[in-house]
């Protein structure tokens, strides 16, 4: 879906949202700290809050009242109608035409005759999601779909949403204050800070940048479309539009693959012929420091032995462009 969103909201508390988003994506991610305006932006898109110009696939929905926008809104608290059964909740929308296999695909088909107050939190969320899907929207808004879920349920939920996206190709905007959660789910991401867009671009570049604890931090210069020169070596990386000059990049050591020879017909954009500077074994893992670019590869000791890696040995470092995170400019 093509998103062209201009949201402007002024609150009595002094909070102001002023965000412009233009992109094309199946799933758009919206991240940022609490209070940065993510939920407000969703409200504007849904039509709860006036104050914006929203074009979805070139169609202006801003003039439409909320109930005609065909935008499903799944809020954090599920908000199932307490006086209706699950089945009645699911079929609430005037656009709903039968349940189909949606309940089964969300594993709620056994709950159809229960009342919302007898469901667990996770069950309620799934019912709320199914209810929104059954209203046949053109766009789905998910506000913090993973909030309050423990590890296991979060993975489950992510898997559900990923499968939903794959099967239905239903455009969605996913809001989360935890960027890592939705990196894999979304194509494009917007980071909000204090009501303004702080960064936007392909998810891996915008969202991975929030992650901490990477082993390799590099500085390079943009030399072309999606190309950066680091330590004299040209690397392909996913950069946000308009990135130029000196930039900071990062990646995980475990995302670096080593080989004895340059592979042919491989998807990885970076296959750099370099040399091993040092190898340090720590039990099952081996830290391999490389020459240029100056970075570390983390592989198993077994692999290091198999490749007979030692200081001075030639090696090919294979790094996916999507594994390299863009952290920003050097200023």
């Amino acid at each position: 879906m093509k998103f062209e969103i201009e949201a402007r909201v002024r609150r009595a508390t002094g909070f102001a949202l002023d965000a412009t988003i233009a992109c094309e994506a199946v799933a758009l991610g919206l991240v940022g700290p609490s209070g940065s305006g993510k939920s407000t932006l969703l409200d504007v898109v849904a039509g709860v809050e006036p104050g914006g110009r929203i074009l979805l696939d070139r169609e202006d929905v801003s003039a439409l009242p909320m109930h005609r926008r065909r935008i499903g809104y799944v809020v954090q608290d599920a908000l199932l109608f307490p006086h209706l059964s699950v089945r009645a909740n699911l079929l609430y929308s005037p656009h709903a035409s039968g349940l189909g296999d949606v309940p089964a695909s969300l594993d709620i088909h056994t709950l159809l005759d229960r009342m919302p107050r007898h469901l667990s939190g996770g069950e309620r969320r799934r019912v709320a999601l199914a209810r929104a899907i059954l209203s046949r929207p053109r766009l789905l808004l998910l506000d913090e779909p993973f909030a309050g879920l423990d590890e296991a349920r979060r993975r489950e939920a992510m898997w559900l949403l990923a499968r939903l996206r794959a099967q239905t190709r239903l455009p969605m905007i996913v809001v989360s204050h935890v960027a890592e959660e939705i990196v894999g789910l979304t194509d494009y991401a917007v980071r909000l800070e204090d009501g303004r867009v702080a960064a936007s671009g392909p998810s891996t570049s915008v969202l991975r940048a929030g992650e901490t604890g990477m082993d390799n931090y590099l500085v390079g210069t943009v030399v072309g479309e999606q190309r950066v020169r680091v330590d004299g070596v040209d690397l392909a990386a996913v950069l946000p539009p308009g990135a130029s000059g000196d930039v900071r990049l990062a990646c995980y050591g475990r995302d670096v693959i080593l080989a004895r020879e340059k592979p042919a017909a491989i998807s990885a954009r970076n296959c750099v012929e370099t040399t091993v500077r040092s190898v340090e074994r720590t039990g099952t893992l081996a830290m391999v420091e490389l020459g240029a670019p100056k970075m570390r590869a983390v592989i198993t000791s077994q692999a290091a032995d198999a490749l007979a890696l030692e200081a001075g040995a030639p090696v090919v470092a294979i790094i996916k462009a999507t594994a390299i995170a863009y952290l920003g400019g050097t200023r």
Partner: protein
Amino acid sequence: MNSIWLSITVGLAATLGSLPVAVAVAWFLERTRSGLRDLVQTVVMLPLVLPPVVTGYLLLKLFSPIGPVGRALSSLGTPVAFHWMGAVVAAGVVGLPLFVLMTAQAMKAIDPRYEIVSGSLGASRWRTFWRVTLPLTWPGILSGAVIAFARGLGEFGATIILAGRIPGETQTIPLEIYAELDAPGGERRILGLIVASVAIGTACVLASRALDRWYRRRLEIER
């Protein structure tokens, strides 16, 4: 005994008549962001703070049978002043503020986001009102109706001014009690009416509380 039956029918008619008004006003106050809300609330609350005879007087000026409105209504077959309808209007008007207050309170207790979710699922405001707001608030509305009924039933000042004391037509319990106070031997006759008044009033309060409890249970949701 006629006045007991009359009081109940007048009270029921007044409550039923003011029900849509109370619900509409409460919805307007609680669910819109109109700038007129303050004005509407002030006007609706007036009968609660004005002396009832003043309310009756203002209503009489409005519906006076020799005025334009009164004459038009008479020709349409529904005269108000000094008729049964006047007793109904007086009871309805004095009960309305409480009715609106309690209905608005019931609506306030419903998370407005239910209505947002309903809208996002494609339901118009009208559909949302009937399928979400009303089902969730109607026990609260009923509770307000019971109190409005009791209040209207007991109205004296506005009723005697707008409708006058017409036995069989507008002579409700309070009007008959007042008239009998001065009559020789009247106090004995009104004992039954007094007992009936207290009984009806008590029943209404108990009913209202029971409805409140039921209403709270209906909205229960584990968070």
